[in-house]
């Protein structure tokens, strides 16, 4: 059992003491118990360990850029001359020769094109990837393949998380669930105050007991609200975005041993933030969330995500993004293409890749429709 899981009795205590309930529907079916949460953190699920990248981590930017220039056929003397000025932040763009070269190192029909818009047209830098044996995530294909990871905490075999494998030898993408990665800590800080909040609702006959549940993911109109101490504010009321594109995110799952699980063959489609994932898709959607004594949820979501989505979350920042958190963004694209393990198309090409995201959520209310009358506390909220 996951060490973070709480006992069944513990979940029952959580439900009566701290969890909050949403009664979004008022018809006869409203007998179901319903609990809602708002997303409080989002980032790649990682489990980096010392020595899990054979031959060490990928090189720093200056070394990689020198290699890239070499790959472009530039003479060594010129590279050496240019690299003498590397990192001079006082340079304007017209004098930033290295930047100009790196920004257009894609070649389409022999013409220089934007590197980050055309990653497949950039020579593969053959970056290193994770060769370690552990990762966080889900066994998406049900197989315990020899090349799959094992969960570092539970020992579960067959964990599919090729995004971790592809990105995990670049320093800002390394970390653990507890620490997060530098990349995602930055991205979450940047988007949390502007991205419409994600809502997670768990519905079942009796959420204090093991049994089948529905897990619904939706988006709010409001952004997540935060406390003065920076933590997501619990017990806020959010209005659900009626956008029909996210209506289908209802998944059959179960509560088992106090853990909410979804192991679905269906697809999740969410909309997030322009900064990272304008569209966020996970095929074979999986979810595993545990609850603490304050009613907060923490765990993983995962599935097969289009490589294009994963790449452009990194690559749309262009040269600045590459300078900040990756020595070789197209190289990461190439790695993901090589390591892709999603379903193959008719040509045998795999365009999606297994991944997992670490999420945290706090109790929230889903707004009921305002009828204009004085609202009255629902029976559930009064007796919580």
């Amino acid at each position, binding site marked *: 059992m996951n060490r973070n899981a709480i006992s069944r009795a513990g979940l029952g205590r959580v439900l009566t003491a701290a969890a909050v309930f949403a009664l979004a529907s008022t018809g006869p079916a409203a007998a179901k118990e319903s609990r809602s949460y708002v997303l409080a953190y989002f980032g790649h699920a990682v489990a980096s360990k010392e020595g899990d990248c054979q031959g060490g981590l990928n090189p720093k930017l200056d070394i990689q850029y020198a290699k890239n220039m070499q790959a472009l056929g530039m003479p060594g003397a010129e590279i050496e001359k240019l690299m003498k000025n590397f990192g001079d932040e006082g340079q304007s763009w017209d004098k930033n020769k290295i930047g100009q070269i790196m920004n257009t190192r894609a070649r389409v029909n022999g013409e220089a094109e934007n590197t980050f818009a055309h990653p497949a047209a950039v020579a593969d830098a053959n970056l290193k990837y994770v060769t370690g044996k552990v990762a966080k995530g889900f066994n998406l294909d049900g197989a315990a393949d020899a090349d799959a990871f094992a969960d570092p905490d539970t020992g579960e075999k067959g964990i599919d998380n090729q995004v971790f494998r592809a990105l995990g030898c670049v320093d800002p993408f390394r970390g653990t669930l507890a620490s997060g990665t530098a990349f995602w800590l930055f991205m979450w800080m940047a988007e949390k105050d502007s991205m419409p909040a994600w809502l997670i609702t768990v519905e079942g006959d009796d959420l204090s007991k093991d049994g089948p549940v529905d897990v619904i993911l939706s988006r709010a109109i409001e952004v997540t609200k935060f406390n003065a101490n920076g933590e997501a*504010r619990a*017990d806020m009321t959010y209005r659900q975005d009626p956008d029909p594109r996210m209506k289908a995110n209802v998944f059959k799952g179960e509560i088992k041993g106090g853990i909410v699980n979804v192991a679905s063959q269906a697809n999740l489609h969410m909309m997030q933030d322009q900064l990272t994932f304008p569209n966020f898709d996970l095929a074979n959607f999986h979810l595993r969330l545990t609850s603490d004594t304050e009613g907060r949820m923490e765990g993983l979501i995962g599935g097969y995500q289009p490589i294009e989505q994963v790449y452009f979350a990194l690559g749309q920042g262009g040269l600045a993004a590459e300078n900040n958190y990756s020595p070789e963004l197209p190289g990461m694209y190439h790695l993901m293409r090589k390591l892709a393990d999603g379903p193959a198309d008719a040509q045998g090409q795999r365009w999606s890749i297994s991944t997992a995201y670490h999420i945290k959520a706090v109790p929230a209310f889903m707004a009921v429709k305002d009828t204009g009358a004085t*609202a009255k506390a629902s029976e559930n909220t009064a007796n919580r």
Partner: protein
Amino acid sequence: MKLPVKAAILCVAGTLSIGAASADDLIPGVARRLTTAQYTRVIADTFGPTIKIGGRFDPDVRIDGLIEVGAAQVSLSSTSLAQYDAMARSIATQVLNEENRVTMLPCQPASATAADDACAAKFLSRVGASLFRRPLTPVEIAHQVKTAATATEKVKDFYQGLSLTLASMLTAPEFLFRIESVEADPANKGGYRLDDAGKATRLSFFLWDGAPDAELLRAAQKGELDTPRGLDKQITRMMASPRLKDGVRAFFDDMLQLAGMEDVMKDGTLFPKFNAQMTTEAREQTLRTIVAVVTAPKGDYREIFTTKKTFLTAGLASIYKVQLPFDAPIGAPDYWKPYEFAQDDPRAGILMQTSFVTMNSHPGRSSPTLRGKALREVLLCQKVPAPPADVNFTIVQDTSNPIYKTARERLKAHAVNPVCAGCHKLIDPMGLALENFDGGGSYRTAENGVKIDTSGEFDGVKFTDGAGLGRVLHDNQAIPSCLVQRLTAYGLGRTPAKNEAWVEALKAAFAKDGYNVPALMRSLALTPEFYRATPTEIKAASNTH
């Protein structure tokens, strides 16, 4: 015989005194410095809500539980005068800038670079009546117009010249102070009463918390406020105005000392949901609750201690852990929704609202003592002595004490000291009834793992929790009695002497009217004593010279 208003304000050595040109023709009145809220309202009423007020006001002073009483006993320091001057210049500049002058001026000057006495007179007499709460005399208008002309001549700009004159009016004592001038009282030989302008000012600030409107000034000028019929007519008109709610709000904001919310700070680690926005919203919640209860048809003041109805924002709802109906358009900010707590919800009345429990707590913990003290002093008009200077509070403050796990246990241990026991016996039982609400306003049933005991007794009546305390207060006669006392003091600007017969009569009328606050306000406004400057009052005012 009607006496001319001769009260003059002299700024001497940085302090302001009420006096006269000479000691012989001294006729004092009551002067109350405009509170921050009143200053803001008068500016908005005169020039519209778009005029921004920048600057720092002197802190309002609370005496006998009320800022309105304190306002009658404060002066101006040279520093605050400088602040008022800066605010005045800023307001005057905005009023007469290119964007606003078209709507603010009732006329167009013949030339933008030369004086226009007729146009200036029109503007200054209209604005002056609103700012000074009375029509300007012809001499005053002539003086202001001359000032404007002189200034215009110097700066070669009509609007700038007028702006300088307006700024000087905004720093005039007649604006910064509500000067309630008096005249001989024919019904009380040797005594004084407020004159027409004084009556209009008192009435308007009492019922509307703002300056008299044109109709009230007209009635005052015609002497209609001197007749019971004329007075009744104006009061009836004013009571029917939506501005009555402003007056009710202002009174309860003062009486409940809700301005204290501005100073509430909480430990963000212990009470993460409580932030600066909550201080504003919690105060507003309580005011909205009270106004809704007491201004409802046949509204009973005592129900503010028992009502399940309130108003919430999403932020407050998160503190109360309740679901809020919410249907604002996309992008709309948080807004207020009426809300009714379930019958079995522990919250009822204003005492369990975030404002009261957080304001009367410490930054890191609740305080039954502060809460009990506030209940005694604010709602029951009692005085609780300050603790002796050498009291040891160690046990009370030690919330992680392994032996005394709840506030009740800690206070019991603390009150072993006989010096402390007397007061704590008086104030703690009521405060302990609210211990289900922590220092951040959230509901709890246990402290350090021990169930919280909220039972107690007040005036021989037992209760088991905060809601029970609310019901006990609802039925206790000291509650409406204190309200009458506070409302009277609020209107008069002074605390009436104990057991004054007319105040006792108001208490009886309040009970007869079903504890309806607007009815009480009306009764008070119709009482001749409300406009009477008693010898005591005159003496007090004279002593400030």
